[in-house]
């Protein structure tokens, strides 16, 4: 069932990336593949993930940050950025 729009008028987009300095073998494989396709000059590729959340109106950025700290990101290896709209 689709969520009731009146209750989910807020969206958060969470970007999760491996921290700088943490080797990203998947990004490295993508970089190799781009080179194989003839794209020159790709110095570095980092692969992350984007998590989109539909939230009840009034959900605070602090709550989303708590979601990131508790589950969405592993802050030992990952950093995150929150976009609210």
């Amino acid at each position: 069932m689709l969520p009731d729009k009146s209750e989910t008028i807020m969206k958060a987009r969470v970007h999760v990336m491996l921290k700088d300095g943490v080797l990203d073998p998947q990004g490295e494989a993508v970089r190799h593949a781009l080179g194989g396709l003839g794209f020159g000059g790709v110095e570095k590729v980092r692969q992350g993930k984007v998590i989109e959340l539909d939230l009840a109106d009034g959900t605070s950025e602090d709550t989303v940050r708590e979601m990131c700290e508790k589950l969405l990101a592993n802050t030992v290896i990952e950093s995150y950025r929150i976009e609210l709209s």
Partner: protein
Amino acid sequence: MRAAVVVFPGSNCDRDLAMAFREAGCQVEMVWHKDTTLPSGIDIVGIPGGFSFGDYLRCGAIAANSPICAEVKAHAERGGFVLGICNGFQVLTETGLLPGALLRNAGLKFICRTVPLTVGTSDSVYTSGYQVGQQIDIPIAHHDGNYIASDDVVAQLTAEDRIAFRYAENPNGSTADIAGILSGNRRVLGMMPHPERAADAKHGGTDGKAMFASIASALAAA
């Protein structure tokens, strides 16, 4: 002694682990991830290998936030013993009971083969049946076994003699060849290789058997 083996949706080494504990003389109870208590009188909790919750989000992340894991954490914080193997090791790092994290193998491939490990310490109930420096052959089967921790954490693990096992030939890019580590009180062990898959002659190897034997004898005497 009594052992509990936690079962998550997607666990696939739970019965192997229970069998290894039983063969060593332990009484074993299986515990479902939605359970909110451990059976009373449990000495050791086993977190088995597998693909809990389909490895969604990150390996072990959703399992680490399941109801039973709050209890496993409390058990460990009371000084209880916890053994996490493969996905179980990933769960233990996600709960924060062990430091560091496990990333995709450096070579990107899922690796399933028996590898040589070097025993790093014999000072734990898990490793007292081995000699420091002894080489043992234990199977690995993982896609995300590349152990990563900061230089400070690795220095601390080394200084406190908490590196239980190292890969003799690093298969996955793990920092400092680390295959398994102990908690500060030496009662929680997380390791990527599968000792429960080398605990019976029919497995093709028995180098993991000493781990379950030493756990059983140490905890029976406790």
